[in-house]
């Protein structure tokens, strides 16, 4: 057994775990944060993407012990003070999700992209999310959602595809 101590979304988590425990299972089952999903067993789908010290990482392909002492961010940490993150807002406004299963991983990748490139081209967005599979949306609205978030973060005016509720 091994000690793992990490921060997830700013909160400390500490547990005695098997050295072989996958990070995604640490997050989902030890920390109880089930927003991070598992969609494959070959590091292909990106449903498990979280930020490890700011870097988008497939948590199904890391052991929990490898990130000991690390700073993790998951979908549950995106909302701040009851305000959705611009990426969350973009996905809602532009209908960037359907079943929602790929969405947390997709959004974490988008957050990391916009942090290093605040004004990506559509092609750069597509390249950034090419390790995240979505079976529902056909990606067009995901690209729009991320562009919406980028514009919002740059302080530009934004309008989404959706009408807001009356």
């Amino acid at each position, binding site marked *: 057994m091994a000690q793992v101590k990490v921060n997830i979304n700013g909160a400390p988590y500490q547990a005695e775990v098997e050295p072989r425990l996958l990070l995604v299972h640490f997050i989902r089952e030890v920390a109880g944060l089930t927003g991070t999903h598992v969609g494959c*067993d070959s590091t292909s789908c990106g449903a498990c993407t979280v930020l490890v010290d700011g870097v988008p990482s497939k948590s199904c392909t890391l052991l929990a012990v490898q990130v000991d002492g690390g700073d993790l961010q998951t*979908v549950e940490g995106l909302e701040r003070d009851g305000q959705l993150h611009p990426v969350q807002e973009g996905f809602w406004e532009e209908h960037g*999700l359907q079943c929602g299963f790929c969405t947390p991983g997709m959004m974490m990748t988008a957050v990391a992209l916009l942090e290093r490139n605040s004004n990506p081209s559509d092609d750069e967005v*597509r390249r950034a999310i090419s390790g995240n599979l979505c079976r*529902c949306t056909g990606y067009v609205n*995901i690209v729009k959602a991320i562009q919406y978030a980028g514009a919002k973060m740059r302080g530009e005016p934004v309008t989404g595809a959706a*009408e807001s509720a009356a």
Partner: protein
Amino acid sequence: MAVAVQGMGHSVKRKEDPRFLRGKGNYVDDLKLPGMLYMDILRSPYAHANIKGIDASRALAMPGVLAVVTGKDLDAAGLAWMPTLMSDKQMVLPVDRVVYQAQEVAAVIATERYIAADAITQIDVDYEPLTPVVDPIRALDPSSPLVRPDRENKTNHIWHWEAGDKEATDRLFEQAAVVAKEDIYIPRIHVCSIETCGCVASFDRINGKLTIWMTTQAPHAIRTVFSLVSGIPEHKIRVISPDIGGGFGGKVPVYPGYVIATVASLQTGRPVKWIEDRSENLQADSFARDYHITAELAADADGTMKALRVKTVADHGAFDAAANPSKFPAGLFSICTGSYDMQAAHVEVDGVYTNKPPGGVAYRCSFRVTEAVHAVERMVDSLALKLEMDPAELRLKNFIPPEKFPYKSATGWEYDSGNYPAALHKAMERIGYQDLRREQAEKRARGELMGIGISTFTEIVGAGPSHTFDILGIKMFDSCEIRIHPTGSAIVRIGVQTQGQGHETTFAQIAAEELGLPVANITVEHGDTDTAPYGLGTYASRSTPTAGAATAIAARKIREKGKLLAAHLLEASPDDVEWVDHQFQVKGDPSRAKTMADIAFAAYTNHPQGMEAGLEAVDYYDPPNLTFPFGAYICVVDIDRGTGEVKIRRFLAVDDCGNIINPMIVEGQIHGGLTMGMAPALLEEITYDEAGNIRQGTFMDYLLPTAMETPAWETDKTCTPSPHHPFGAKGVGESATVGAPPAIANAVVDALSHLGVTHMDIPIKPWMVYKVLEEHGLAQP
């Protein structure tokens, strides 16, 4: 004052999204119950083998392992086999023989996920490999080994099915001036929703109630089947289909894992969770397509189509577990005359067993419409080449004319409505068809390769009318129950089950439109058999045509009562009260009006003597006919002469699904459908080697489209309402998956047609194109 209801036609922001965006969805694997056990499944490495013995002693000796379940254990309880949806039966666990690779062989029940996974490696199975039956054509040879010796008929042939008029068709072919003929293979593919399948089965020994959280698209049907098979009374079974991470038809069947987990919970009295891995999902869960088609299209010399003849061998794998309506072993394949006015057609399909996992399930179209559309749309292009005619012109010449609807097809379907020329003209204009043809000619002269592909498909959805449509005898109606609360908000419960389609929003919009209540004040619930009215579930684009209709009609029943309440409140005769602009008013006097909220309050506080209190209704809707959405798709491809790669430059989809509830959601459905149409056209296929080993068993080899291969889809629409649906809608979820593959294949063939290419099987891989280029000296090294 009229309320802002945001009913039909509004792009309402989805009501389900707040939880998904925050990582607070409730998927099956998110559920953790006290005392929960975990199950893992040992699978067969062989496609065909006898099992001579299973020794689980080493696994059972491991700390944390509670049980190992084998076929012999299930057999003792009469549960080693279960019925399929197609009147066949399927092994839950094998007693003495495995019939496909990755078939379930034994299951471990343990206290932890990792222990269960360890333990399956400690089970010793003594296999005696047998010759597998891999090729469905050779399977029909009398000398072939038998896949299913358990059946009375000692053959691999499952059934023969045909539709249309053989004699008339053959006669037209004899007289025809031109006949185009192609062999068309539509490969085996897999839906691969990003969430795999799984369940948590929880049997409560005290009250004898079994609750199963399951990744299912059809919870009510599952409850009935589980009750019939297990003998547990139906009121003691509750199936909950929580948030589902994509379905596309792959979550309609009953998989052995669900049954074994349930048995394990019954035996241990503890909740048992089973979640399959991606490789298990991809290797063993049901597959789609796998149709070997020979199609012929006969025409006059001027291009007037006369007749279509189609013969098909359908590879169903080892169990016929297709999820079709009972009377249609080949689904709705006989829609294959498509959008064209033909005098006769004859379609034959032969279902065959092979040593592969069950086929014939779904890939965002379960009823074989994709196969039908691919066949006819490819044949139209093949005929155009023979006639040296533009494929758009040939289509326009042969479309069923708008004035002929309702139209009786040569295979017996009654198309409800359509306007095919309008859709194609719109697509051609918007994409600049004539300019593209000019560009192509210029490029061809320079040795560059581009192609333009058209698909003008007709879909058939909304199963279905009870006189013809049932699954295991259960009629394919669907349902809705609406209750309006005293303060003017409502709950809508439906018999269908969303897997991403946005039912919590769209069904609220239908109810809002019909009731005059704001969308924001309506909750939609589904997927819990203890609370939702009975329905057959969501697949085959049936939710809006069936449960959507039920919602409108239940709301109209409420309006009937509402009218009486309004008359009472307005002190008018009911005959003088009318429903205008989402409220009741005295005829011709908008100043004397009552909203549905007023009516609701009165229904509980001030209802007239002699009237029941409350305001609710339920409807079970039996559609009078299917609906027939359609579309005109145009795809432009460029071919890389250095690699043979096909690049989709533009893809325009003009869809017609009748009246639209939420345009934003419909567009999203089309984007997703197009992507799942492109996938089998260019990327995805499941193949087996001679030993029956699957060659694409993980996401490393089975290529789902990423954002890199997927083009920026362009969409547009025409609107031809369904005349028989209560609000003129038709259904749209699968249109694009059905319509897109032939548009892409036709574009590639078009790019190569001057080299003599008339057909290419999908998926069209770069090497296939490169080979053609090489043969004609066009490849760039």
